[in-house]
């Protein structure tokens, strides 16, 4: 045993690589046979050893082919990237084995065994996912309980929004700010009026019937747009020299940060009307919007305050020495820099906000996840929870990933650091 050179070396490159490859090959064959043919090649070994056999074979094989500067480019690449030590070799094997073991069943469930055709639960075989459920309920998942005949109004509102946003990329810089003002202040009124109706011959649709993905968008968009300026003023207020403003900002922020969103929503539904004079009625969607907005504004304030604190004192002094007052200093010098610094934090808060919207179910408003929840309890569609939640999860992921990418782009675009 002592005479055999255990350390793989360049002189016997071919031998080591062939023996190593055979070991790796055996390891994979063992795993593949067991996974797909349900046949255990190493059954003669004790059960525990047999279970780890692919890993052991693979590790030995990878050890044998770990030869530095072998001259073979392909081999060197593998060794540097996946096989630089025994520990890394084991990690590499574990990842590959996990992929082999778990990806095929997932794909089977999602696509190969899944049912797409038909329009009832009975059309599903039950082996894979029953996407028929999503297909049949899609209309509800997007529009909630909104009357079918009136759904064009939601479409029109969103198409108008996309057109306006799209146009903002093409119009010349001068008219851009008018478009922005229109988008922020006038469009929301038009959009809401279009969806809620009641005037101009449009049938009134009460907010209780709104729902699904469109409600997710409405709630998120309003809360996003409103919580940002409120958060900004709270952040400035918390750093103010005037005690009254400072302490009321601190109080506000700490109050809203200290309570769970779900209790805030309950309060907005149950407690808030008690403080109003008799006979006044505020729509529950509006109450919910206010609650979410103030809740997220408190978080936004702390994120922005982080950015304000990161700026050197010299920036304030330079602005002051040029004769700028408090507001000019903050809006021209301090906030543009502070906000740029905390784009990741702002994106974080925005994503959290979008993902918090399902909680509005506590006041009876059902957005996407809420509608899924409702649909799965339909007697004709029992047992479809998995499909529903996977679908809702995917949609949320797409929305959030898009926002995250946008924030990264924005960061790059605004960067004025030395390239």
């Amino acid at each position, binding site marked *: 045993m002592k005479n055999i050179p255990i350390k793989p070396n360049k002189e016997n490159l071919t031998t080591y690589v062939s023996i190593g490859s055979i070991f790796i090959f055996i390891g994979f064959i063992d795993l593949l046979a067991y996974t797909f043919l349900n046949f255990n090649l190493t059954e003669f070994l004790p059960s525990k050893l047999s279970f780890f056999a692919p890993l052991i074979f693979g590790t030995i094989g990878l050890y044998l082919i770990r030869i530095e500067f072998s001259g073979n480019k392909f081999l060197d690449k593998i060794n540097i990237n996946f096989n630089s030590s025994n520990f890394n070799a084991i990690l590499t094997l574990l990842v590959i084995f996990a992929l082999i073991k778990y990806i095929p069943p997932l794909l089977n469930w999602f696509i190969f065994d899944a049912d797409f055709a038909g329009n009832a639960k009975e059309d599903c075989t039950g082996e894979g996912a029953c996407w028929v459920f999503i297909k049949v309920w899609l209309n509800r998942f997007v529009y909630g309980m909104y009357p079918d005949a009136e759904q064009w109004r939601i479409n029109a509102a969103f198409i108008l929004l996309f057109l306006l946003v799209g146009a903002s990329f093409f119009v010349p810089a001068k008219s851009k700010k008018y478009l922005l003002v229109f988008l922020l202040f006038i469009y929301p009124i038009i959009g809401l009026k279009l969806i809620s109706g009641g005037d101009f011959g449009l049938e009134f649709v009460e907010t209780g019937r709104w729902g699904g993905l469109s409600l997710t968008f409405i709630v998120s968009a309003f809360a996003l747009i409103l919580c940002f300026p409120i958060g900004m003023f709270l952040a400035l207020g918390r750093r103010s020299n005037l005690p009254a403003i400072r302490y009321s900002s601190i109080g506000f922020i700490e109050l809203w940060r200290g309570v769970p969103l779900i209790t805030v929503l309950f309060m907005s539904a149950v407690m808030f009307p008690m403080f109003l004079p008799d006979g006044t009625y505020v729509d529950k969607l509006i109450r919910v919007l206010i609650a979410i907005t103030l809740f997220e504004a408190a978080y936004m304030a702390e994120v922005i305050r982080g950015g304000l604190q990161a700026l050197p004192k*010299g920036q304030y*002094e330079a602005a002051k*020495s040029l004769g700028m007052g408090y507001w000019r200093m903050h809006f021209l010098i301090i906030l543009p820099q502070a906000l*740029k610094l905390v784009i990741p934090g702002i994106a974080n808060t925005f994503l959290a906000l979008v993902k918090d919207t399902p909680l509005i179910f506590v006041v009876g408003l059902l957005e996407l996840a809420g509608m899924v929840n409702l649909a799965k309890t339909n007697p004709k569609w029992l047992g479809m929870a998995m499909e529903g939640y996977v679908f809702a999860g995917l949609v949320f992921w797409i929305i959030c990933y898009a926002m995250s990418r946008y924030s990264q782009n924005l960061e790059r675009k605004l960067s*004025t650091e030395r390239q």
Partner: protein
Amino acid sequence: MGKIIELKNVNKWFDKFQALKNINLEVNQQEKIVICGPSGSGKSTLIRCINRLEEHQDGQIIVDGNEISENTKDIEKIRAEVGMVFQQFNLFPHLSILDNCTLAPIWVKKMPKKKAEEIAMNNLERVQIADQAKKFPGQLSGGQQQRSALARALCMEPKIMLFDEPTSALDPEMIKEVLDSMVDLAKAGMTMIVVTHEMGFAKEVADNMIFMDEGSIVEKAKTKDFFDNPKSDRTKLFLSQIL
């Protein structure tokens, strides 16, 4: 030529620590004063009190006929007439050099953009970095940044310029280019108060020298007298170490 800055018995404390003790100082129009002294002697605090980046607790500071105190309504108006150059440049990193220069004239002095840019380019020309106008501060060398900061202050067309150790954060090679710009400015007749350790610059430009130690003015003299025969022992010691 009349007095433009007057300090009478100014005292300032940072909590218990007294940073300025009984400062009396008069500055005439177009006068150039260089303040020197060991670190912690209150030089920076003194000039920062003149545009109220620091608040004094006792005494009077009168700038261009306006007394500066907590009752001053339009401190911004006074600051707009007093330019300042900082040790750390303090350019606005999110704006190009040109925007750095035009921002305050446009927003504080309500100048039309065209005119502000014209003035900015003139001032950038004056400190010889007009070709860098479109760049961002992070893309310039320290010396170029400090000259941009000088141009930015000049764009407000101030009556007085304060310099707070303008060359202390620079490489030796870059000190000269900044000092050259300051010498040009002095020759053009600007009222200047400069805190610096550059004694060559002081000898060339200053009308009067001030030596400060432990919060008080130890010696104030004509530049030639100050260097040739300083009166106090503390000044002699300081000069022997620095020259």
